[in-house]
């Protein structure tokens, strides 16, 4: 599968890369250019209480930048050429380029492993590991652990409207802290073995909780759901084709469930009656898998479309399906002054 393509093939691939580069080059010079992000300045002004100041309150002011479409920028400039309310957003413009280049770097893995992909890979490992660590701190450690064990400090500095903890949650978080510290003892080789206690706690609660949830919502619910009447009397009498046709699905479902269950038998050899049932069962499973495959393809293609749309729309400004760059009926793709 991964044989090296012969030289004519390399030529074809090189031409494809050149063509893409040519489109990007052309796009930079054509019409109103490409890949720019704009933002609108919003002045924020909030009065807060402050015991230190003589009036008892003080004003906090800051500026926020709200993303707007290129069309809104053009409209603002047209209305007042000297305005500075809507401006080019340099950070997000650079961001668009970074995002586009990283997108292409990942796609390049389809051809083969290469330095661009390895760079993207190195970036994503570092960024995402830290990202999830940060999420863990701000979403779990601060509101749950600090919120329960150091409530006053947390409300004063980070989360002013955090409700007061219950005794139960304080006990729970105390346990969590203790188990967390036990786990970190892994870093001290002499007593590291004790960290298995934390693991034991986690594995224990997982095992206990999963028995409950699987028996309740899967085993019982699915068993009851299969208990359907085999015959669905249709209009016009009992022994008619219509009844037969209407009853077929429920018969097929019951047969299918029983045969598939037979396939999962471990302690009986799949021979004779059991063997036939298991074979029917595996056929049902294959149809199930085929259907899931077909449906999943849909979702995967949708994701690819999204990435391609990002490249063609947000980055290259080649298409504009949402009309974000149409000003007074003129597309910025063509350029407000130029011709396509």
């Amino acid at each position, binding site marked *: 599968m991964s044989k090296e393509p012969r030289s004519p093939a390399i030529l074809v691939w090189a031409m494809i890369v050149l063509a893409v580069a040519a489109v990007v080059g052309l796009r930079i010079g054509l019409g109103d250019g490409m890949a720019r992000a704009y933002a609108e300045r919003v002045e924020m002004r909030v009065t807060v209480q402050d015991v230190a100041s003589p009036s008892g309150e003080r004003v906090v002011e800051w500026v926020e930048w709200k993303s707007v479409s290129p069309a809104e920028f053009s409209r603002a400039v047209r209305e007042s050429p000297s305005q500075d309310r809507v401006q080019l957003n340099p950070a997000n413009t650079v961001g668009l380029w970074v995002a586009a280049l990283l997108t292409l770097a990942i796609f390049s893995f389809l051809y083969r492993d290469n330095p661009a992909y390895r760079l993207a890979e190195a970036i994503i490992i570092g960024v995402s590991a830290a990202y999830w660590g940060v999420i863990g701190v701000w979403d779990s450690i601060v509101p749950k652990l600090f919120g329960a064990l150091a409530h006053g400090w947390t409300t004063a500095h980070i989360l002013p409207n955090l409700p007061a903890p219950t005794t139960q949650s304080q006990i729970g978080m105390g346990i969590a802290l203790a188990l967390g510290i036990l786990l970190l003892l892994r870093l001290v080789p002499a007593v590291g073995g004790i960290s298995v206690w934390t693991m034991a706690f986690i594995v224990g609660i997982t095992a206990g909780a999963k028995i409950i949830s699987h028996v309740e919502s899967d085993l019982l619910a699915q068993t009851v759901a299969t208990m359907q009447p085999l015959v669905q009397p249709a209009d016009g009498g009992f022994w008619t084709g219509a009844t037969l046709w209407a009853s077929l699905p429920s018969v097929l479902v019951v047969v299918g469930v029983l045969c598939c269950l037979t396939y999962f038998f471990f302690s009986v050899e799949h021979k004779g009656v059991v063997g036939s049932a298991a074979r029917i069962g595996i056929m049902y499973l294959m149809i199930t898998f085929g259907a899931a495959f077909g449906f999943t393809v*849909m979702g995967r293609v949708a994701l690819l479309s999204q990435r391609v*749309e990002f490249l063609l729309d947000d980055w290259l400004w080649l298409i504009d399906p949402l009309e974000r760059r149409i000003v007074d009926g003129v597309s910025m793709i063509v350029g407000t002054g130029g011709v396509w």
Partner: protein
Amino acid sequence: MEGVLGILERLDRRWVFLAMALAVAGPILVMGITRKTLPETPTDASRAVFQVVQSLPRGSTVLLSFDFDPGSAGELEPMGVSMARQCALRGHKMVFISLWPLGGQMIDQTIKKVLRADFPHLQDGVDYVNLGFQTGNEQVMRVVLTDFKRAFPTTKAGRATADLPILSGIERVGDFALLAQVSAGYPGSKEWVQYVVSASGGKLPMVSGCTGVQTPQLYPYFPGQLRGLLGAIKGAAEYESLINAWVSDPANAAEMASAGADGGVSAVIPPKYLEAQRRMGPQLGAHLLMVVLILLGNVVYLAQRRSQRRAAA
């Protein structure tokens, strides 16, 4: 013939990748420039969603749960947009919630895109409200069964829900006329069915839109516990086309005017209401390619088997 088969047998998978890229990018480019879409023939499951929303009495309060994030917005956002749009057209009140951390933002985008843009007379807190994200997965569902406002004490913007006009008659989730839900995974449609619809004794009707991956697992619930189901981008496109057909029908002009829809009946559908239908273009290209690939793969396989048999003989 042998030559072609030989090439196919040794085909480098990169050519398959290139074919897929063209099958997806081509239609996007063409449809992006021409702004044309493919016609849709809605299936029963999608039609059911449209009819359930349509059949509620005007002014019903609908609970919309947007349980997805930007990762699956390509498939699911058009469903959320269409649901909000149809509710607004029918004059229903909308209470938006989310069990996914980034769902609150998806709701804000939808409100901006549909309600503020096309139904500017609707008031936040009276005709619609965004209650934002709530942590706790199924635990939240268990709480809303008995006390909706306890699970959502404030709106996303920080207003208390206790005295919110839109929630005046709502004590528990069963008081809503409909649960319309968009699902990207866990927690999602399956959990809503298991913990809320079943527990309400079938009194709370539910319609759902979900990703392609989840669709097979949700079909067993339709049309029983799920009154309607939008499966993947295809379901979104079908639903979108049903609403667009209704909007374009002059017979509905009066009703639309009373709902205060901006612009009234118009033959030109704004592009934001054609997103799902537009995305069916690359789907068609990709699916046809898949079908061709499966066929080619089997032609190669059968030819190989025949030559092996001949060699053995």
